[in-house]
Structure formats: C-alpha cells, structure tokens
C-alpha cells in the first residue's frame, strides 16, 4: 500500500477560528483523514518542532498555515514548513492578507505593548511588567520570540503557493482545495482558491438592489435594524461585498450583517480598500464640498472599515509615520 500524502496545519497570529473551520468539515473530515496523514497540527495533536525538523525536505505534500505573522517564532516555523512542504497554502484571511491582527499596523509595537500590558482599563500590572525577548531569572536566561514591528501576511515572509481566503474559509472551499490537492488538479501557482467574482454574484439580496443607489447618509450596523431582504447598500449600510470575492455563500448577509470583506479582493484589484472607497464615495449624493464631507463623516474610520482584513497586503501596508524600525 502506497504511503498516504502528508498534510500539516499550523497557526500563527490567529484567533483559532481557522482551526475550527477544519473541524467544520463535519463528517467529511473522516474522508480527509482517511486519505491523508496529518503529520503536524499543534492545535489538535501533540507534535514537536523537532519532529518536523527531522522530516526530509518536501516530504509534506501541503501545509496550511493560518494567522498573520507577528513574531519571530512564527517566521521561523513558516520557513521550516516551507522547506518541508511541496505546497504552502495561506489559510484564512490573516495568512492571506494580514487579517484583523494587521489592523495593529496602525500602531507602533511600543504603543501596543504599553497599552496591552499597562494602560488598558482591564489591566492590573502594578509592577508594570512588559514581556522581554531576553530575561535573566534566577540565573537562567529566558527568551521569548520577538514581537515584530510590522504585522505581515504569510507571503510577505515566505513563498506561498495558494491562498484559501476567508475568516474563516468555508468548509466547501476547504474540501474543494483538498480534493484538488489530492487529485493534483491545481490551478496556476499564486491562485486564490475562491471564485474570482465579487460577492454580489451569489448574494441572495442581489435582486433587491435598485440600479440607482446613491448615498445621502452612511449608517453603521448598530444604528439601525437592517431590513433582512434589502441590499445593505440600498439601506445606506456599508457592505464590502462588491469588492470582495465570493465563495462564502454570503454567510454574513444570511445572518443579516453586511460583508466586511474577509475573502479579499478579486485578482484584478491591488488594493481592496481603495477600490470600495472609490465606489462608495463616487456614489455620494452631493456636489457641494461641505455636504460631501458631511455624508462621508458617516464613515468615521476608513482604515478599519475598508481594510479590516487587508491592511498588511494593502499598498501602504502600515501607518508610515510610526517610530520604531523606520
């Protein structure tokens, strides 16, 4: 009996949702497990880095890495897995585009550590202790991975073969990707394994959108009770659907929440946030400068709104004026 293909999973700066999404395969996970050997999956099984280091190079068929890259340790493991794997798949929004963790690119590392360990209202830290990469304790040298200045998407650290988008990727896309892997029917390297059409294409509310939607006001989801049948944009609610890949089955819309863009942009777009900004603002229903500003003030945080998942891979990547490593 020929050896089963080896698969690995790893997580970096992530919430764990991507790991959950693997389990969301439900019973079909049994088919997957039957077809492959999972050789590394720190969340679910007990493996050591040493085990991976001992594997021959390229002996793993594919490794799915989720989470953004925030620490030196995550980088090291990514390099290691790259060496050991034939294919690296950036799994989920964070590995794909930086994800929610990359919103931290609006702040300096020092600011974040200061806030999280000292200033946040929920913190009790009378000694003001902040993690240190190197620490002498009781004669012992203790080290911690270094917290990077910049949050990165996976392909900003290692070469990535495929991207499985989403926060988290839908089980349907995962199953399709695994099938493609096992059958060796992979698209060209660098492909995002999701449809290259925006979400509206599969949105159940597509029909409900009038052709002449312009914005006299932008509302935020907590300010209104959204009509469950009408296109969010027609209700003045920002929906990233038009600038976001489909493939999720319009999951958020079905839950009566507008799309926040986790599948990232179609291949034709360099910067998802700039493109939705362009579309939304061009359709503002005013010609007077002050009135335009008033309407646009309904979008109080353009970076957080338009780059919720994509800041690391946006054209500017990070707030450019931060002190630190620049």
């Amino acid at each position, binding site marked *: 009996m020929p050896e089963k293909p080896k698969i690995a999973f790893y997580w970096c700066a992530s919430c764990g949702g991507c790991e959950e999404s693997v389990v969301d395969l439900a019973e079909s996970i049994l088919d997957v497990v039957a077809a492959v050997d999972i050789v590394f999956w720190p969340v679910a099984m007990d493996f050591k880095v040493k085990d991976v280091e001992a594997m021959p190079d390229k002996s793993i068929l594919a490794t799915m890495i989720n989470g953004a890259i925030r620490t030196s340790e995550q980088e090291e493991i990514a390099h290691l897995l790259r060496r050991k794997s034939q294919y690296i798949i950036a799994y989920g929004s964070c590995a794909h585009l930086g994800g929610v963790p990359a919103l931290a690119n609006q702040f300096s590392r020092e600011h974040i550590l200061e806030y999280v360990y000292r200033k946040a209202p929920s913190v009790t830290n009378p000694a003001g202790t902040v993690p240190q990469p190197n620490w002498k304790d009781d004669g012992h040298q203790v080290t911690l991975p270094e917290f990077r200045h910049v949050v990165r998407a996976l392909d900003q650290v290692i070469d990535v073969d495929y991207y499985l988008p989403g926060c988290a990727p839908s089980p349907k896309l995962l199953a399709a990707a695994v099938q493609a892997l096992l059958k060796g029917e992979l698209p060209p390297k660098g492909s995002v394994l999701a449809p290259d059409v925006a979400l*509206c294409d599969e949105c159940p509310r597509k029909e409900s959108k009038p052709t002449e*939607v312009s914005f006299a006001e932008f509302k935020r989801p907590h300010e209104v009770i959204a009509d469950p049948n009408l296109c969010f944009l027609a209700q003045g609610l920002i929906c990233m659907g038009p600038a976001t890949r489909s493939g999720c089955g319009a999951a958020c819309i079905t839950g009566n929440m507008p799309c926040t863009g986790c599948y990232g*942009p179609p291949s034709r777009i360099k910067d998802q946030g700039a493109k939705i900004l362009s579309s939304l603002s061009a359709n503002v229903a005013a010609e007077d400068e002050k009135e335009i500003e008033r309407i646009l003030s309904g979008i109080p945080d353009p970076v957080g709104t338009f780059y919720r998942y994509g800041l690391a891979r946006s054209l500017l990547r990070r707030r450019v004026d931060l002190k630190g490593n620049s």
Partner: protein
Amino acid sequence: MENNGKQPRIGVYICHCGFNIAGTIDVNAVCEYAKTLPHVALARTYKYMCSDPGQEMIIADIAEHHLNRIVVAACSPNLHEATFRGALQRAGLNPYFFQMVNIREHASWVHDDRAAATAKAKDQVRAAVARVQFHKPLERKRFNVEQSVLVVGGGIAGITAALEIANSGKHVYLVEREPSIGGHMAKYDKTFPTLDCAACILTPKMSEVREHPNITLWTYSEVQEVSGHVGKFHVKVRRKPRFIDEDLCVGCMECVSACVYKEPKFEDEFNEGLGKRKPIFMPFPQAVPPVVTIDPETCLKFKTGKCKSPCATVCDRKAVNFDQTERIEEIEVGAVIIATGFKAFDATRLPLYGYGIYSNVYTSLEVERLVNSSGPTAGDIVCRDGRKPKAIGIIHCVGSRDKKTNRWCSRVCCMYSLKLAHLLREHTGADVYQFYIDMRCPGKGYDEFYERLLDEGIQMIRGRAAEVTDWTMTPEEEGKLVIRVEDTLSAYVRRVPVDMVVLSVGMEPAEGADEVRRMFNISCSKEGFFLEKHPKLAPVETATAGVFIAGCCQGPKDIPDTVAQAGAAAAHAVALLDKGYVEIEPNTAYINPDHCSGCKSCIPLCPYHAIVFDDGLKKARIDEALCLGCGTCVASCPSGSIIQNLFEDEQIFSEIDEVLSNV
C-alpha cells in the same frame, strides 16, 4: 500581455522640434537611454518627427525592423497624436500601438534646467515604453451624422452661419432668445469704416432667413437641454409664449394701435431704454419674424385680468392668444454652432464717468440708437436734458484694458468711436473730443478712416479719462460736464467741458453664457468668452466635437471678422454633415461579463446613462454607442471588472511604476 503572440519590439523616436526641444533637452542622451530599456528595438532622434520625412522614417523602420510598438517623444498629443497614429496605420500597424510623450509643452518649454528637463524626459519615455507594451489593437467606431444643424443665437454671426448652411441644402434650426433676430447689429446706425447703413446690409439677410425653406426659425426661444454627442445631439428648445400665433400674425400692427395704452409707456429694450413701447409691440419695424409680442409683465390683461383686450378684437386673423403656453421642441442635430454674442459693459460699474448720475452721459450703444433715423429721436441728437450738444467727449476703453474691470481690449471701440464721432459731428456740427489710451485701427481701410476723421477736425486727446464731473471751476465750464484727463502727449492735466459724454463701452461675455457653455459642455477662457480648440489653427472648433463657435461669444470682434468666423463655422458643420459619419475614439469602456458581479454600483455614475443592467445575465453592460470614454465607472468598479480601452489599469499602473522606478 497581448501582443498577438509576438514579443514587443518598440521603436522610440525623440523629436528635436528644431531647437524647441533640443535646445533644452539633451535629445541624444534621451535616445541613448531609450535604447537601454526593455523591448526597445531601436531609438532615433529627428529634427521634426511630425514632418513627412519623420513619419516616413517610422513607416520604414516598422517594415525593416519589424517594430510592433511606437513611442514618439515630441509635442503634446493634442497636437500630433493623430498624425503619428496615421503613420502607424500607413505602415500596416494598428494605430493604437502608439504612445506619445509630451516633452515640449510639458518639459522643454517650461524648464530652464537642462539636466532636470532631460531627466524628466527620460522618466516619461521610460513610462511610455512600459505602457505601450500593454496596448491593444483598437478600432474607431462610426456613427451616422444627423443632417441638420442647430444655430444658437440670431445675430449677424448666427444669421450668416444659418444662411451658409441652409444654402448648402442642409436643414438649420436657428434659435434666438429675443423676439427678433438681428442681434446687436440691428441696433447700429452705420458700420465702420465704410459707413454703410447697418440695416441696409442686415435686413435683407434677416428676410432671407425668414424665407429660407431650409431654416426653421424659433425666436423668443432658448435651448434648454442638450444630450448626445457629435453627429447626434438631442436638443430641447423652450419656446416662450409670446401670446401671438406666429403663423397668423402678419405684423400689421393694428393691435398695437388698438392697445388700451394710447401712448407707449414702457421702456423700450431695443432702443436701450431711450424710447418707449406698449405692452404689445414689435421691437423694430424690420423685425424677423415680423410679428408682435405681448409682454405679460406690462400687459393689463395679465396684470389685472380686467382689460377688454382691444388688441385681440381688432385682429381679424385672430392671432392674439392669451392662453398660449410655453412649448418644448425636441430636435436631433448633427452639429451645433453657438453664436450667442456679447453683452455691452455696464457703465454704472465705473461711477467716476457719471453714467446714471449725469443725464447727459451716454453709452455708445445708446448713441447708436440716438443717431439712427429710426431711433427714438429719429436721428435728432438731443440730450436727455433737451439741449443740442455743442461739444461732445467720447471716452474710450470703458470696461476694456482696465485692471479694475476687464483686462482685455474690446477691439472695436476705437473704430466705432471714430464712426460715432463722424456721425455726431455730421448731425450736430459739435466739437468732438476723443479720449483714448492708444488708437488701435488695424484692418482693411481702418487706419485710413482714422486719418479721415483727423482731417474732419476731431480732437484727439491721448490719456485715459480720470473722471466726468459737474464740478465746474471756470465760467465757461458752467452748466457743462467736465472731463478731467492727463493729456499724456503734452504732459499736463486738462479739463475739457462738454455737453454730452459718450462712453465707449467694451464687450463682455453675453448674459447666460455660463449656462450655454455648460449645456454644450465647452470651456471658456479666463474672461468668460468661449474657448476655441486652438487659438490659431482651430479658432471655431471647441473641445467638444461637433460644437462650433462664431462671433463675439468667442471674443470681441468686428462685423467682418464675425461674418468670416461664422462662415468658417458653417463650413465645418457642413463638412461634418457631408461626410455623413463620425468616427469616435475607441477609448470607451466595456464590462467583462465573466468578472462583473452585478453589484450595480457603476450604473448611477455614468453621465450618459450608457450602463444598463442586463436582467437576463444579472450583470451590467455598457452601451458602446453611448459611452464617451471618461473612465469614471472604471475607476469606481469595486471588483475591477470594467476596462477602459487605452486607459486600462495595467497601462496606467505601469506608467506610475515607471515614472517612479528610479526613485
């Protein structure tokens, strides 16, 4: 990259443009640099790329070196892009495999620093070389041209243009805001320098317009809305109610005699307010169309409803119709000529000359009516205070060549001031003084006319008049208006007492010019006159294809120049109609149906309603015939599914990247 399967082989040509470019930019260095760029098969410089030998060189190189992309660094693409595209076409290459770099207007002419200008030229050439690799073969689209022309404005320019076009067998819609055509010229008495009577030469043309089978004349009407494009403009014309059925009225004027106002009581616009008219009136005897108009602002029937309306009773043709309402006419035309004329400068803006303060201060236009035998005084020069002037001062450049009002020269004032001096002297025998800054009399017979006036004994005082005052200092000034001026030729300040002052007012853009401009989507120059496409080589064309301009709406000019320009505009319009089709640049946008998600965000953005939602496919689609290629939808498409030919994302990104690649 779509290159018909071929690797790009780019030819780069750097134009010297004599010394225009080569004087500031090291063209050889740019050429040598271009040779080092990827996919550049050859690079050359030439003295004049746009010349025949320059174009032939490109054509020969395309054949000999199998070039499939051409970059020319020369002047503005607005001048010679079409020239070089033509050369590519003659060489059998798609004309859109071409990119032009503007190193003259945007570099050599605006920079002194040779090194910096050369560096800029290199950057822009590099960007063009990168961009042209992404160019695709394109074709120009053809549309039929509607065989009719709209002429807006019925002054001498509009009349001339309309007649020229109508005589060529094309249909003309002539739209005039006032009750009669004729414009300013109809108000003039004589014309300089020949002194022939304005009415004698104008009214036959006005009648010709009325009689012409190819002209539809709509007076008392205004263009309300314009859409479409060259070859097919859709125009809505608002016809204001004149409360007279134009087809029934024969202009017998019996209604005017019958009006309950026995005497004319209201200010007569045609006579510049110097005369009076009734609520029912014809602006002047030779008006075209020769029909009366009722002014609802002054007519008792409209104001009180209590008039017995003898005007209606007396009309045996039943032409009076108080129930007439505004009508909208909708027409389609292939071309438009705008000839909306000018507005005379409002002399009250310069109170130092006393207009509106001293009754004997007149504008030149008022004097035109005053000296006119059909004017309010039948040509008798009597001042507002009843006196016959013995001394008259004519002040030039009122509202012209003046930083406080209008900077520009109105071109006609020197000449018409001489003409008025002649007429006033002829009618009154008065001493006439001209206060001028410079005498500008270029034109056929103009300087001779000036000399004739000097011989007639007109007093010429060189100096901008400082003020007109009734503050007298000597007994001989008593009861007169005094013009204070520095006589710059004898270098002392003079006080010239006169009975009558004539202000030679300048020309300004017509009332409503801004709305006209916006409606027809043309630009204006700084002063507000409509902007021609090129000040020298395209003086009657505008930036909007199919829209031409003639007469003073383009800038101050005299009657001969206006008529010549109107003829030129007419020739352009007729040429366009005769050609029968227009070709439209292929820089239009299209939607890739495989990529479009049907989000509909683009649909409200199109100013031409060219984007429709295909209910079958559930995707948006651009009607190519309606798209004019602005690219607004392309910039907005949130999924990058709209492409603009010649301005594709990857073409523009490659330009951005390359102009910055040496940072």
